[in-house]
């Protein structure tokens, strides 16, 4: 592609050079009609720009509290594990260790359905925002997606959760194992960021080369994407009719809330990889602030649910303190950074059309059930019971003490990212 060719298409301003052009976002789209209808305004609010991370996080926490009030909070890797177990089951490969009583059918697995509707919700949102497109990256990137997915699968099974169960839900659930898991996630992220920067210097070919994009919305004129988005969301919501309204309310609740979660994930570009990774790349503190806001809201709701006896107080508090959390955290951190999305980040980006993240999901679908079947039992057998405990912080510190401890940790984290953003002490870019 020659520079002249593209230049000739974009030669709106030729006489500048010394004069600096102001930044004008998307100058070509300003062909709106004179009067802006009320629905155009609503559309612009919801889909014109991505939502702030803090807004997304607060809504996600409220939805997660909703799931907890139904039965148990938001989780992600368990759902993809269910996809994988069902797939192995259909192919005829029996997984007798990890599912001794047979595999629960995907339709009856609430987290499996939650992951499906999250993907559908994200796809609907990206279509409505005209951001959907099938994006095929260069081959090296696809390999990294697959490898990252496989590593995440191993990490999530050994660590007994992913960045949702052991972080976004695990921290508000006051789990000690979740604190260890996230500390070790940072180690994995740090190593993987170093790798990405090394790869960029020494093997730039991996992330360049042939790529293509299909089905993107045209910039000029109208697009069918918003209509397609409405249809996709309606199909997602219609999944609730698979269930009996009198006896299967839990599944109906998970289907509908999953759809909303997927929608919010895409609109706010919720990304835990980014939150942790930017510490070492650009130093941007905004994702961390958003995540902290979400965790605070979650902690308030979860604690209320526990104290009032609405839900199981040990939900999302796994038997992973401390060795499984350490090993799983590091491996998961490596995997999610190489893939460019954690389990839930891969799910919503897959809905938006990123083929790299489709491959991350493929990696997860394969490695989650296989790790649960072959690696986890042997690994846990090796460890004494004292190294795989269920650490519920209130058992040691009481609810008040645990919440004070969490507030202290969140405050320190906030001060740390702000300091790092200002000084650039740990940033590479």
């Amino acid at each position, binding site marked *: 592609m020659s*520079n002249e060719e593209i230049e000739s298409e974009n030669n709106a301003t030729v006489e500048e*050079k010394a004069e600096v052009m102001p930044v004008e976002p998307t100058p070509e789209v300003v062909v709106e009609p004179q009067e802006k209808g009320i629905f155009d305004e609503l559309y612009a609010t919801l889909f014109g720009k991505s939502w702030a991370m803090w807004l997304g996080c607060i809504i996600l926490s409220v939805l997660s509290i909703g799931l907890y009030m139904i039965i148990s909070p938001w989780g992600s890797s368990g759902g993809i594990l269910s996809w994988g177990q069902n797939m192995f089951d259909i192919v005829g490969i029996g997984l007798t260790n990890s599912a001794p009583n047979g595999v629960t059918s995907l339709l009856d697995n609430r987290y499996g359905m939650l992951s499906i509707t999250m993907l559908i919700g994200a796809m609907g949102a990206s279509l409505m925002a005209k951001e959907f497109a099938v994006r095929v990256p260069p081959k090296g990137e696809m390999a990294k997606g697959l490898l990252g997915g496989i590593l995440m699968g191993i990490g999530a099974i050994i660590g007994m959760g992913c960045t949702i169960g052991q972080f976004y839900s695990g921290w508000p659930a006051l789990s000690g194992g979740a604190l260890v898991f996230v500390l070790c996630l940072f180690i994995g992220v740090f190593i993987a960021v170093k790798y990405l920067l090394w790869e960029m210097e020494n093997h730039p070919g991996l992330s*360049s080369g042939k790529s293509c994009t299909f089905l993107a919305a045209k910039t000029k004129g109208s697009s069918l994407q918003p209509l397609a988005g409405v249809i996709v969301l309606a199909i997602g919501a219609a999944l609730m009719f698979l269930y009996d309204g009198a006896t299967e309310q839990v599944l109906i609740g998970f289907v509908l809330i999953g759809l909303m979660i997927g929608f919010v994930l895409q609109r706010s*570009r919720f990304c835990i990889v980014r939150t942790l990774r930017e510490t070492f790349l650009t130093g941007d503190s905004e994702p961390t602030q958003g995540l902290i806001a979400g965790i605070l809201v979650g902690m308030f709701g979860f604690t209320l649910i526990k104290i009032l006896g609405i839900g199981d107080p040990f939900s999302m508090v796994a038997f992973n303190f401390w060795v499984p959390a350490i090993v799983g955290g590091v491996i998961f951190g490596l995997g999610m950074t190489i893939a460019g999305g954690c389990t839930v980040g891969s799910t919503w980006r897959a809905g938006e059309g990123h083929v790299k993240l489709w491959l991350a999901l493929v990696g997860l679908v394969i490695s989650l059930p296989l790790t649960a079947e072959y690696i986890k039992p042997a690994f846990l057998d090796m460890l004494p019971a004292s190294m795989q405990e269920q650490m519920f912080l209130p058992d040691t510190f009481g609810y008040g003490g645990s919440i004070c401890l969490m507030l202290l940790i969140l405050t320190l984290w906030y001060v740390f990212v702000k300091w790092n953003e200002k000084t650039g002490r740990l940033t590479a870019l």
Partner: protein
Amino acid sequence: MEFDETLDCKGLSCPMPIIKLAKAMKKMPSGKVLQMIGTDPGSKEDVPKWCSKTGNQLLGTADEDGANIFYIRKA
């Protein structure tokens, strides 16, 4: 808009576009303009943010059928 070099980030998802952009900008002499083409919707926010943080100047942006084009002058 005139530019001196172009950087193809089509098909790439976060964080590869920003890592590539940082590397390409490092190599360019001060005052030159880079045209970056990407397809990740995340870049629409990431690139302006990165520019203002690093002091490089985002001269303008354009959309073209699913691709986002950025013009950045090296500080």
